[in-house]
């Protein structure tokens, strides 16, 4: 698939891997993608447009996003380092500590993200940091399900 370079929004994409892996769609966003649901747009917005599971607090805070992933078995962990038997997700926060983005780990080197209403991309943590989404601050993991 195509390699992207988006220096304005993702300055590190110029030098780091950033590869398109899906068509454009408005059906789901990065949070939904990391959560494992590509049928809805997850966001606890003020207008009631985004989906947010009812038991969870509908507020745009890192705690609320952590609770979302805890609800499907993820627990906070220290690093983005790949662990064979675990799935990992990363939460990106802006300089004020507000959530902006989530990505899920694919393998030792790559992560996968949905970019707003655009493509899914595979990338490194670094390639998507320092731009529109800020930094990957929170990492969570859960045991891989046996198929």
């Amino acid at each position: 698939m195509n390699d992207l370079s988006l220096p304005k929004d993702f300055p590190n994409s110029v030098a780091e891997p950033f590869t398109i892996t899906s068509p454009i769609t408005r059906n789901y966003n990065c949070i939904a993608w990391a959560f494992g649901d590509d049928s809805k747009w997850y966001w606890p917005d003020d207008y009631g447009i985004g989906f947010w599971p009812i038991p969870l607090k509908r507020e745009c805070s890192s705690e609320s996003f952590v609770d979302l992933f805890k609800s499907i078995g993820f627990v906070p962990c220290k690093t983005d380092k790949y662990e064979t038997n675990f799935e990992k997700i990363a939460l990106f926060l802006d300089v004020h500590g507000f959530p902006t983005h989530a990505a899920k780990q694919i393998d030792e080197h790559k992560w996968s993200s949905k970019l707003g209403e655009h493509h899914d991309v595979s990338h490194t943590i670094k390639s998507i940091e320092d731009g529109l989404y800020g930094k990957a601050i929170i990492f969570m993991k859960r045991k891989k399900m046996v198929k």
Partner: protein
Amino acid sequence: MKTETEFNIPFSSVGKTTSISFSNCIRLYEGNSLFVKQKKISKEYRDFINLKDKWKEETMFESNLNNIFSNSNYVDIIKFGANVLPWIIKDLRKDGGYWFVALTKITGLNPIRETSRGVYEEMKKDWLSWADNNYLNERSVTT
């Protein structure tokens, strides 16, 4: 009609007189002339398209719906009020986008069913069904 006019290009005195006369003609015929009305709609439509394109460009990688709905171009489109409803519906039908908050702010309505929340195609369907039931047809424009 005597008016005070500022010119941002260096007209000659004849040019100034012609320009003022032209402006007076527009004022006199506004409300009566279909041609003048059409010209005004064309300008409004161009402004709408410009704001819409900027909104989509500036929010294309956003996941945060609050940021998508508070983008200054989106807010400016809402300020146009009911005039832009047919154009929003047309765009929703064709190119799409998260127009739902703009539609609610302009109409004061929210036809989105609880079960549609977060599901883009369902929310779109709910609004287009509302538009069809209310005979909200496309507003004609000549650019």
